Every structure is written in structure tokens, then in C-alpha cells.
């Protein structure tokens, strides 16, 4: 069972990295959005393998919606959404590659050398997890949850106000 999990985690992990990398390697913006959608959906599958079923379903649902909207915005805003003209839309490439590589190496070193303590093998079933998460949301983390809800409301108002056209009142 543990070996099966390791195989699934490795395959899904490599697939997520591959699609994450493809996001910035294709000249078609629509393909970039679909690659990101696939990458984040695979993260949802990794959540499933780690037995976090509720978060996995939430991740897949949210990312499917969000990335579809992102693909539509790509079509709206881009001069060349299909990438037919092969435009280069990057800058400071060397700096970005260096900083990305340094950050990755530092984090991997931290993972390798940190003392993670005892690893827990068994975890409660999905029904119990949902119950416990519900209790957490309604008790200790209620304030955080309420704040998140209010933030969404504020962001909706801000987004609508920002996206509306400015009216020039000067005559």
C-alpha cells in the first residue's frame, strides 16, 4: 500500500512539474492556461493520494473554474492568444532563472536537512475528517473563516469598481 502511494505521488508529482513548466514554455496563451489547469488539477489528485478528500474535490472544482475564466481573459486581452506569431513575452530571463533555481535549491536543502520528527502513518476516514474540519471552522478558526468570507466580499466590490470605466465629469 505504501509502495503504491509512493508510485502515485511520484507520477503525479512529475506530471504536475511537467505541466507547471509547460505553462511558461508554450507561446500559446490558451495552452498556458490549460497547462496550469492540468497542473493544479494534478495537485488535487495528490491531495486525494494524501487522503485529504474534501480539499482535493475543492481544489479540482475551484481550479477548473478559475483557469477556465483565466483562459477566457487570455483570449480577451492578448494580441496573439494562439501564439501563431511566436512573440517573445519575457524579460530579465537570466535573473529569473537564477532566482528561481536558487530558491528551489535552498528549499530542497531545507527539506533534506530538516528534522521532521515522527511520520504519522494512519489518518482518520473522510467522514471523520469533514466533521473535524467543520468543528474547527465553527470553533477555533471561526474568526479566520469569517475574515476570509468578508475579504471575498470586499474583493468582489473592489474588482467591480476597478473594472468599470472611469467617467470623466469635466465638461
Amino acid at each position, binding site marked *: 500500500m505504501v509502495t503504491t502511494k509512493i508510485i502515485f505521488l511520484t507520477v503525479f508529482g512529475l506530471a504536475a512539474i511537467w505541466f507547471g513548466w509547460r505553462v511558461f514554455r508554450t507561446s500559446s496563451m490558451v495552452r498556458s492556461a490549460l497547462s496550469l489547469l492540468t497542473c493544479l488539477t494534478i495537485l488535487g489528485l495528490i491531495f486525494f493520494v494524501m487522503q485529504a478528500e474534501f480539499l482535493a474535490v475543492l481544489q479540482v472544482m475551484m481550479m477548473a473554474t478559475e483557469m477556465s475564466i483565466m483562459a477566457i481573459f487570455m483570449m480577451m486581452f492578448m494580441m496573439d492568444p494562439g501564439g501563431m506569431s511566436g512573440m517573445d513575452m519575457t524579460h530579465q530571463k537570466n535573473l529569473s532563472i537564477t532566482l528561481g533555481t536558487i530558491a528551489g535549491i535552498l528549499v530542497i536543502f531545507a527539506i533534506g536537512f530538516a528534522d521532521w520528527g515522527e511520520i504519522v502513518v494512519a489518518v482518520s476516514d473522510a467522514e471523520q*475528517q469533514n466533521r473535524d474540519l467543520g468543528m474547527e471552522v465553527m470553533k477555533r*478558526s471561526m474568526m479566520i473563516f469569517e475574515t476570509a468570507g468578508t475579504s471575498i466580499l470586499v474583493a468582489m466590490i473592489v474588482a467591480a*469598481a476597478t*473594472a468599470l470605466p472611469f467617467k470623466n465629469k469635466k465638461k
Partner: protein
Amino acid sequence: MIELYIVLTTGAVLFSIGLYGALSQTNLVMIMMGVELMLGAAMLNLVAFWRYLHPETYSLQMFVLVGMTVMALEAAVGFAIGTQRFRTKGSVEMEEASDMKE
């Protein structure tokens, strides 16, 4: 232990790819994609910490929910700025956005 290492390493690589994307792209929507990738990597780490280190601590799952909220908010506000920018300047290229500093 090896399962934790696999998941955390996947998260680290995704984070570095996201950082590269956020720094190297000139288009607003592509920069947002890089940020989304970094947030996805952070959520992956949080779920791994919950599953393998503290499965009794549900505040870690709560933190993932907050992460998802942040992703949605970032997308909403980012697209709103992009829409306004496109409406006024006809482009969401960030190299042409130095006038926002003025």
C-alpha cells in the same frame, strides 16, 4: 518519510517554476499564473504537513482553505486591474505600465 519528501520536493520545484514565471513574464495574466503556481505549491506543502506530521491539527486544513481564498481574490483583483488597463491603454503588458508610477 519518503512520501513526505516526494511531496515537499514537488512543492519546492513548482514554487521555483512559479517564481521564474512571475519574474520573467511581461504579461499581467502570465505573471498571475506564476503567482498561482507558487500558491499551489504552498498549499501542497500545507496538506503534506497536515497528513504526515499533524493529522489531528485541522487548522492546517483551514490554512489551505485560506490559501484557496487568496488565490481567488488574487485572480479577481488582478483581472479587474487588467480589464481597466486594457480599457484605458489597450494592453496588459507590464513593460508598458511604468506610467502607473506617476
